[in-house]
Structures are given as structure tokens and as C-alpha cells.
């Protein structure tokens, strides 16, 4: 881990920032807990004290199913006339990369002697991953989820409940992810002494963005080894979708020092890149592409906000990308030109979903489908050897995709007549 720290220092100012981004903008009551966490992170994660990282890796192998494959996508390679490889995080236990982080944090909480786990969830993927990890490690767990999301992501609510977690619907505001995070922070501010808050992406106050990245970094580390073995060299480009950015940083981190590898973060372009300030709405969540600097949920980063500083409501066909902020490290990597921020709109993402399902027999998450939509649009720019991270599976998205497909004329969609009766 020491080499990683050195590498970090190239672009981290130290402390909890990445260039101008990061920091710890939280209520005073949480600061001691963040310091305790920082300390635990350094000892257990960075220094492998008490064999923490060994246990983490063992559990991710046996419980989580790591390593996940790096698969050559035969038909996409043919279609785009270049070598396309898919990193199969969809095969991880729970169906997305989210477990890497959830298991890491719940295990860390256990090492820290915490007695209770809380987490926010939007689409429910982080909530289910956390509930699974908490069940696995015998920790009581409560998940906050906006009422709107509870209603539209019922299967994930059931999964959490089956794993023994409580699910607390949050009624405030638009009752989606942003409000769920706010509410989880409030719980944490109340119970901080015995509770660990498992943040679901590389966002939030230091040390979360670094720690979550480190738990997710296994994605890129595996890709490096696997692509070397399969293609004999590093890729020309690596593509990952970005919501908060945890699968993104997890995929990119190992490649940051490799200047020859282009890194593309694909955000949700939604239905348009314009913000409607009047109504506090962005019809996208393309934070890296269009956002401005500000502070949200504990960190300085790029945000979707109105001119006066109110956070706007983001929108995407993909619930997991639907967030007005993004990890501070990604904001920094974009600013220094190491990561290229891009986005594709809802239609392209839906086409990406259908294309991978039909051509490769893999039903990707709608989040991951954004990366695949970008591949379709811009494959010519991506060089001869491309790796795309399939961050999760799309079982959770079937209803949404059906509904959204029926509304549109999508080039890649099958004719989906619904079987009535």
C-alpha cells in the first residue's frame, strides 16, 4: 500500500483533499468520528493491521466472488473493429460492484468495535450490498431510502428486509437519494458513537472518498493483470460510468499513473444538459461535464447547483447515476486532464442496455449501459484495445427499461410485446 500512497501524493495535497476538492464539511458532532475513522482507515486499510486487508480480500473472494472475469466481448469487438473487453462486476455477489465497498466498510466498522451500521440508498443497490455485508458479518443494519425510491424499487427493499435490515423510508423533499443521504447523516449525528455510516460511493467527507476508492480499486488492479495476460499489454482506454464515481475510481485508480491509458467517465446526460434553475431541476446528472464547484454532503466537489447555491434535483433514467454530486477525486482528475468527462443521454444508454443484452447475453445495469452507450458513439476515439466496466447487472432495471423502451423508438431494442393475460 505504501506505493499507492506515494502515487496519491502526486495529486493529493495531503490531509483529505484532492487538489481543491474534498475536505470535511460536516457538523462538529461528526468530526471526532471522522478522525477515528481516518485513524482506522490508515491502520487497517493502509497498513493491514491485524490482517484486516487479508480478511477483506478473503471474504471478497469467498463471499463476494472475486476476481470477476475480464471477458473479451466477441461481438462488440467485431462490431467496432477493435478489441473490446468487459470487466464483469455484474457477477459480484449482489449484482454490482457495490459490495466491494460495503463489505470493506462493514468489516472496518467491526474492527473499530462499532455496533450498528447505517447507510443511504437510492436505487437500492448500495442498500442491498450493505444489508448483505451486515448480515454476513452479523451487524444490525438500517437503511435510509427515499419514499419515492422505496415505491419504485420494491424488490431491492424486499432483499434488504430478507437480509434482516430495517428500511426507513424518507419522506422529505423529492424523497430520493439526496434526501436519504441527508437523513442518514442525521441518524449518524445522533448515534455516531456506536454507529458506522457506510457511504455508498467515493463521496462524502474525508476519509470516505479515499477509503471507498481503495476498497473499489481491486477492479482496476484485476483489470491490469487480466488484460496483460489476455492482450499482452495495457489498454488504450478504459471506460466506466460515473454517478458518485465509485465504480469509476475503482476502475481507474490503478491506471492513473499509466499516462498511455485514456480514462473516460461517462455520466448520465439524461434528456438534456440544461439546468432549469427556476424549478431547481437538472434533466441530467452530468456533474463532471456541466457542474460547478461547491460543497455537498461533506465535500468540496463539482455539483449541480443553481447560481445561489441551492442543490438542484438531478434526473436520469438510471437511478444509480441520479445524483447531483460526484467524488472529489474525480473532479480533480478531470480538472488536471487525467480523466475525460463525457456523457450519453437516456436514449443512448437504453440502446446500450439492449445492445449488450442481445449481442453478448449480458443484461447490464442501466448505470453501466451509459458506458456501453459511449462505446457505441465514440468507439473510434478509443484506440485498439478498450476495457469497459460493466458495474452491475440489469435485473433490477427490467421494469424501467420496458417502460422507457415503450415510449421510444430505440434502434437496438427488440420488439417487446408484453404477454398479457
Amino acid at each position: 500500500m505504501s506505493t499507492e500512497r506515494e502515487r496519491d501524493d502526486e495529486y493529493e495535497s495531503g490531509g483529505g483533499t484532492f487538489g481543491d476538492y474534498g475536505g470535511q464539511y460536516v457538523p462538529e458532532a461528526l468530526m471526532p468520528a471522522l478522525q477515528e475513522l481516518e485513524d482506522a482507515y490508515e491502520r487497517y486499510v493502509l497498513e493491514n493491521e491485524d490482517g484486516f486487508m487479508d480478511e477483506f480480500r478473503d471474504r471478497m473472494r469467498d463471499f463476494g466472488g472475486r476476481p470477476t472475469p475480464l471477458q473479451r466481448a466477441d461481438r462488440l469487438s467485431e462490431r467496432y473493429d477493435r478489441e473490446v473487453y468487459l470487466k464483469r462486476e455484474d457477477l459480484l455477489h449482489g449484482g454490482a460492484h457495490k459490495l466491494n465497498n460495503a463489505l470493506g466498510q462493514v468489516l472496518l466498522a467491526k474492527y473499530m468495535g462499532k455496533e450498528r451500521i447505517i447507510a443511504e440508498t437510492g436505487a437500492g443497490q448500495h442498500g442491498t450490498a450493505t444489508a448483505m455485508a451486515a448480515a454476513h458479518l452479523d451487524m444490525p443494519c438500517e437503511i435510509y431510502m427515499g419514499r419515492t425510491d422505496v415505491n419504485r424499487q420494491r424488490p431491492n427493499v424486499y432483499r434488504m428486509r430478507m437480509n434482516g435490515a430495517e428500511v426507513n423510508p424518507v419522506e422529505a423533499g423529492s424523497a430520493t437519494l439526496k434526501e436519504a443521504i441527508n437523513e442518514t447523516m442525521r441518524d449518524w449525528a445522533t448515534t455516531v458513537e456506536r454507529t458506522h455510516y457506510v457511504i455508498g460511493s467515493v463521496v462524502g467527507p474525508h476519509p470516505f472518498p479515499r477509503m471507498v476508492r481503495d476498497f473499489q480499486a481491486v477492479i482496476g488492479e484485476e483489470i491490469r493483470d487480466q488484460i496483460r495476460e489476455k492482450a499482452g499489454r495495457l489498454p488504450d482506454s478504459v471506460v466506466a460510468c460515473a454517478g458518485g464515481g465509485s465504480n469509476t475510481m475503482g476502475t481507474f485508480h490503478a491506471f492513473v499513473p499509466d499516462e498511455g491509458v485514456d480514462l473516460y467517465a461517462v455520466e448520465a446526460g439524461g434528456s438534456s444538459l440544461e439546468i432549469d434553475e427556476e424549478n431547481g431541476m437538472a434533466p441530467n446528472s452530468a456533474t463532471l461535464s456541466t457542474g460547478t464547484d461547491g460543497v455537498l454532503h461533506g465535500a468540496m466537489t463539482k455539483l449541480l447547483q443553481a447560481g445561489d447555491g441551492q442543490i438542484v434535483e438531478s434526473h436520469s433514467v438510471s437511478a444509480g447515476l441520479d445524483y447531483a454530486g460526484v467524488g472529489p477525486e474525480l473532479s480533480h482528475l478531470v480538472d488536471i486532464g487525467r480523466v475525460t468527462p463525457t456523457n450519453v443521454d437516456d436514449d443512448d444508454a437504453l440502446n446500450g442496455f439492449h445492445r449488450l443484452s442481445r449481442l453478448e447475453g449480458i443484461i447490464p445495469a442501466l448505470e453501466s449501459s451509459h458506458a456501453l452507450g459511449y462505446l457505441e458513439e465514440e468507439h473510434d476515439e478509443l484506440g485498439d484495445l478498450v476495457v469497459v466496466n460493466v458495474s452491475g447487472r440489469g435485473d433490477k432495471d427490467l421494469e424501467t427499461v420496458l417502460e422507457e423502451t415503450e415510449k421510444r423508438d430505440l434502434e437496438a431494442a427488440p420488439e417487446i410485446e408484453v404477454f398479457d393475460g
Partner: protein
Amino acid sequence: MSDTSSEYDSDIEAAIRGNHPALITYITAGDPSLEDTKAYVEALDRGGSDLIELGLPFSEPIAEGQTIQAAINRALAAGTTPEGFFELVEDLETEAPLLVMTYYNMILQYGSEPDVRPFVERAAEAGLSGIIVPDLPAEEADPLRDACDDNGLDLIFIIAPTTEGERLDAVMSRVSGFAYVQARLGTTGARANVSGATYDSLARLSKYDVPKAVGFGVSEGDHAAEIIEAGADGVIVGSALIDIIASSDDPSDAVDALEAKAAELKRGARRGAETLTDDPEDTPEPEQP
């Protein structure tokens, strides 16, 4: 607005020390409209507030309980903007000095670039005496602190039940105006009793020579009495006032009730102070939450 800066470092310190035991009241600006807020603030002032905190609403109020969240939502729905807020402040005529309570992003975004100075300058110009930022811990506060210093404003820090040891020293060394003592873990919101943590915190803080005001959960004159008796210099009340505003059928009905509530709280605080003078040996038993 009053100007009492003489033996004290700032208006705010003067407002608290000079009016011991002090009553600090909070409401959200723009709830349900800026005009109503003007009338409410003046009522709180008449009722005996020694310092008034005005919330500038932010869409992500992570430190607030449901009562203040709802107030903020009403204020945002009414179209409250920073500029409207500052105009309200300029319009207000109160005995008590005024503080703005808002989240850090609102401060950062006030100018054309993310920068704290334009907000602080405008706040000073509007006549505010200080700023409280619930999501700005001491570690991140230097830029805002510098700007406040340059503009003669106090930056108020919150001391939580978890603020202890070296961190407590570090935070206390930055305190100006007064130390906002958070009575319990959690968020704002009226509670039925005084938390045991309050006594612990006041004990921990007794060695620091700064005014201490206790907030989070104070809702009645009796709480105010207990808290002052426990050694605080002031009590801070917010959600209990917002409950009055939210439950009034007609906004103007709330004016008298707010004045009466402020008076009740101030009386309670005085009662606490009298007990202290009467019987300085008698430290009250912490009530179990």
C-alpha cells in the same frame, strides 16, 4: 440595531454577557414569507431575545430535525433568496443583534466564483453581527474565519457532546462571540427535557472563559431555567418557535404567540439565574433523558 461594543469583543459577546442570562432565538427567514419573518423577528425582539439567529434556507439541511427542515422547505418554496434575505436584514429594526445561520455552500456561492468573501462583506454591510455554519467544523473554517475577522463579524462554532480533549482546545481557541453548546447528539428539534449531555458539556467547558449558550432541544421556560442553573450564559431556542409559526392558521396570529414564548423563555432563564445566585452551592441533578 443596538451597538453595545465597549467592554466586550463584539456585539454578540456583549449581547450575551451584558444581558445575562441571555435568550437567543432562531427562526428561518422566508417561512412562510419574508414579510412575515420581519414581523416575527420584531416580536421575538420585543419578547426579550438578546440575540436573534436568522436561518438562510439551504436545500440540504443535514443538521436540522424535521421541524426546521419543514420551515426551510416552506421558505424555499416561497422563493427565498440570499439577496432577499439580506434586504430583510437591512429592513429590520431590533434591539438584539442578528446572526445568520446557513450552510457552507450558500456562503461559497454568493459571489460569481466560489468564494466566501462576497457573502461576508454583504452580511456585514447588511448589519449582521455574526455567522453560524452547521456544516463547517473548525478544520475547514479558516477562510471564512479570516473573512469574518476582516469584516468585524463573529464566526460562531458549535461544541458537540463529542467535542473533547485536544479537539475541544483547538475549537475553543477559535471561538468568537460565544460557544454554541449542542445540548445533545442529533439534530435540532424541540424536546421534552434537558439532556444529561448538557451538564457534561458545560462541565467540560467551564475552564474556558467564553460565553456559552446551549441549544438543540430547548423548548420551555423550565428548560431554560435548568440550563442557566447548570452554568450556561444563554439558551438558544428554535424549533419551539417554528412550531408556533407552523401551527398558526394565519401568519399574523403567530406574532403575539412568538412574543409571549420569548418572554416565557426569558423568564425561565432569569429564574435559573436567580436560583444560582440564591444557592450557588447547589448544583442541580442532571435529569435522565
